[in-house]
């Protein structure tokens, strides 16, 4: 028997990962690893992992990875890229990390046209701390800290990070995808590839937002979570390439 193209990419370790059933991180880790393999950049890639469940990404990817304090991956990535401009540097951040505590870093890093790539995983909750409201939680969505649903008068609106970042001159490529079915995953993978190519071509800052499933955090079965992301989340966060210059 010969392997088809559907075998585990080299940039993933054999380590089994500890994410919950149906968690989208595994899919996103894999498509990033596939892109890294396809672009032949594994030996020059340095990733910055967030605080949150995905901090363990450094146990799963087979390239160099560092941790960073909560919300600060874009600053850490800046410190790496400025002294090693020929390496491929990307951050992997959740909605709490990037869109709440790390808003300052993400905006200024994008605005500097820092030549890095940001993978932003939006699953609408703080997964690791048991599902509190995130900046991206939908209006009316119940979470651990919005037990009666997110209220606009108290909690404001879901933060549209990609749209916000796209108005900055320094942001060269911004796209939003999801991982709810093979077609969407293939499209999202193409966004990630374009983002990395944007960096390889020294064009500047690129960001791919990925709508993802956190079944445990939003208290749904994996399949329910999948359908909810596909049918509800995409209404608030429309998919597609938002900016490509």
């Amino acid at each position, binding site marked *: 028997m010969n392997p*088809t193209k*559907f*075998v585990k990419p080299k940039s993933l370790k054999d380590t089994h990962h500890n994410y919950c059933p149906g968690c989208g991180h595994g899919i996103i880790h894999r498509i990033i690893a596939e892109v890294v393999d396809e672009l032949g950049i594994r030996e020059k890639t340095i990733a910055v992992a967030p605080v949150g469940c995905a901090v363990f990404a450094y146990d799963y990817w087979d390239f160099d990875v560092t941790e960073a304090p909560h919300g600060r991956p874009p600053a850490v990535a800046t410190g790496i890229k400025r002294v090693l401009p020929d390496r491929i540097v990307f951050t992997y951040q959740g909605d709490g990390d990037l869109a709440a505590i790390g808003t300052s870093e993400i905006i200024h890093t994008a605005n500097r046209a820092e030549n890095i790539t940001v993978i932003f995983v939006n699953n609408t909750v703080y997964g690791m701390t048991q599902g509190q409201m995130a900046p991206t939680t939908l209006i009316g969505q119940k979470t651990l800290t919005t037990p009666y649903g997110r209220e606009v008068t108290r909690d404001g609106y879901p933060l549209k990070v990609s749209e916000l970042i796209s108005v900055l001159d320094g942001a060269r490529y911004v796209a939003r995808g999801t991982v709810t*079915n093979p077609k969407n995953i293939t499209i999202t993978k193409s966004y990630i590839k374009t983002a990395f190519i944007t960096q390889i071509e020294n064009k500047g800052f690129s960001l791919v937002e990925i709508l993802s499933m956190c079944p445990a955090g939003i208290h749904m079965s994996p399949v329910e979570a*999948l359908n909810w992301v596909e049918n509800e989340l995409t209404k608030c966060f429309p998919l597609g390439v938002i900016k490509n210059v």
Partner: protein
Amino acid sequence: MSKKNKFLLKINYENCKGCEYCIITCPQKVLSLSDEVNKLGYRFVKIINQQNCNGCGRCYIMCPDYLIEIFSATD
């Protein structure tokens, strides 16, 4: 006469968490959820119709635990 397998699915059952993403995505109904549980305590995915697999890779693409790999038969 048995149908010859064109594609072989390799599944790491022991690490399967039974999310069912592969099952709902498979257009050929090759996969199903087992009634037994694995060492992790999850009902795991099992192959019920290997011969129907057309190697489309949708299960591989959907698996969040990258437990599925697909091989093609050599003639």
